[in-house]
């Protein structure tokens, strides 16, 4: 059967970091999925956030750990030589920087429980517009999932998410709300700044206008008198 490409799911760090339930389907070569508390089954994710720092896990291992922040928390990403395209960008990038990352999710069993990380397939530097749209898009998808958690309780993944996580949906609603407000406030500050800029430009223009008038007046004078020509 044809192997289908996996859609890159949109999740906030708050939710991804609480996901620890692996689902593997029967059959060889089937991808591994991680079930999230709002019932999303994901294998690949796309995130946009601020690269806070990067560190080489062991000296000369060429294996890098990066921390990328969104308005709800921090994603941990690890890139190594098996992701050469991503690694190339990671080596050049200097945090802090706004980045977009697409990658596969991995759940590890650690000494203090399970933890989740993203293995980037591609890393790129982006502007804040991409981050804003990502937050909006991720908020929208999360709201849709929260609503389905309430209305489709007997659907397979959702029933399992209730059983595994029994999530407090209001907590997730609150995180989405906070994330949206962060970018909304940014827009407003940006607007104020734009307004201020317009004001400055206007003042400059006014000044120019006065200057024009002066020059005009100057021309009216017969300079020859003063210069004694």
């Amino acid at each position: 059967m044809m192997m289908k490409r996996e859609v890159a799911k949109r999740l906030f760090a708050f939710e991804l970091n609480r996901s620890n339930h692996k689902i593997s389907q029967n059959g060889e070569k089937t991808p591994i999925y991680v079930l999230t508390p709002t019932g999303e089954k994901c294998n690949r994710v796309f995130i946009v956030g601020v690269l806070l720092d990067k560190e080489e896990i062991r000296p000369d291992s060429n294996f890098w750990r990066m921390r990328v922040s969104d308005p709800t928390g921090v994603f941990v990403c690890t890139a190594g030589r098996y992701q050469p395209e991503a690694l190339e960008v990671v080596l050049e990038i200097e945090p802090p920087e706004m980045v977009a990352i697409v990658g596969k999710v991995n759940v590890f069993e650690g000494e203090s429980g399970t933890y989740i990380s993203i293995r980037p397939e591609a890393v790129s530097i982006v502007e804040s517009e991409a981050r804003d749209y990502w937050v909006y898009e991720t908020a929208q998808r999360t709201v849709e999932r929260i609503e389905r958690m309430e209305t489709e309780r007997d659907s397979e993944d959702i029933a399992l998410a209730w059983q595994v996580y029994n999530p407090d949906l209001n907590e997730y609603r609150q995180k989405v709300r906070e994330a949206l407000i962060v970018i909304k406030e940014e827009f407003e500050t940006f607007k104020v700044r734009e307004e201020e800029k317009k004001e400055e430009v206007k003042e400059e223009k006014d000044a120019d206008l006065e200057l024009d008038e002066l020059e005009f007046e100057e021309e009216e004078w017969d300079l020859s008198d003063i210069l004694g020509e």
Partner: protein
Amino acid sequence: MKGELVEEKVEIISKLTEQITEKFKRSGYEVNPKEISKRLELLMFEFKVPEREAIRTVNNYLMKELDVSREQLSMESPFIKIGEITRPNQWVSFKAKIVQLWDSTSPNVSQVGLVGDETGIIKFVTWAKSGKPEVAEGKSYIFRNLVTDSFGGRMQVNVNRNSEIEEIAEDVPLPPREIKVTGALIAIQQNSGLIQRCNECRRTVSKGICPVHGKTESYDDLRIKGVLDDGENFYEIILNEDNIKALTGIGLEEAKKIAKENLERGVVLQTLRNRLLGKYFTVNGTRGERYLIVNEIDFFRDELGEKIDELLTRLGAEQ
């Protein structure tokens, strides 16, 4: 008068008997029509049990006799539109057209592909053990009693032993092929950038070798093969020189210059990745067999303020 009444009764009983027999037959069970008629007649005309109740009682009796569950027996599943399929493990029936058949490499699967109506397109799988006849691309059918399933995060429908496929003359329309998508460009494939094409067939040439014409004369071209992903679907897209120039200012001439200055063609791909990867685009395009053919592409730059307010309203007040 009395004769007519008897005739009417006989007709009702024989019609209901036929329906019940058919239903069990569809699921692979032979039942005795005489036995069914006798029970129906007794219930409906001796004991005056309402028709629905009588049918249900006979069904239950037969299921018990044959030791089959309600799930095994295909109870008439509701007719729905493909766009309404959102949950797994539902029994459904619909009228749809075969959009595409894929190659099945699994011996357990007799057919796999896409089926659609005007509300959507969905993957279907026909299990070999279902013993159902094959369907043909471009033809329309009534599908009865399919089971919905979720695989890799996407919905699909499975044709099983209880299903029924009936070809119809009607041509079921498919969703509009023209679509508008906003998504992130999450991948730019390696065979993108400044490429070379065969003079004879325009196929891409690698190290001067055309897959058809071998060693060949070639010309330069600029293209991007990539994946646009909106979190729900992905679309494979191809950007041509015009698209790339409109987005980045880099056309074929500029690309050649970049390659020449750096003595390395790969730098063009690197430059395009730096400029485009991970960013959001809005594409107006036509759905093709595999690719979304790009008619128009631009960086996403809509105002988000109103959309955010709508979403905040949908979230409701803080609790």
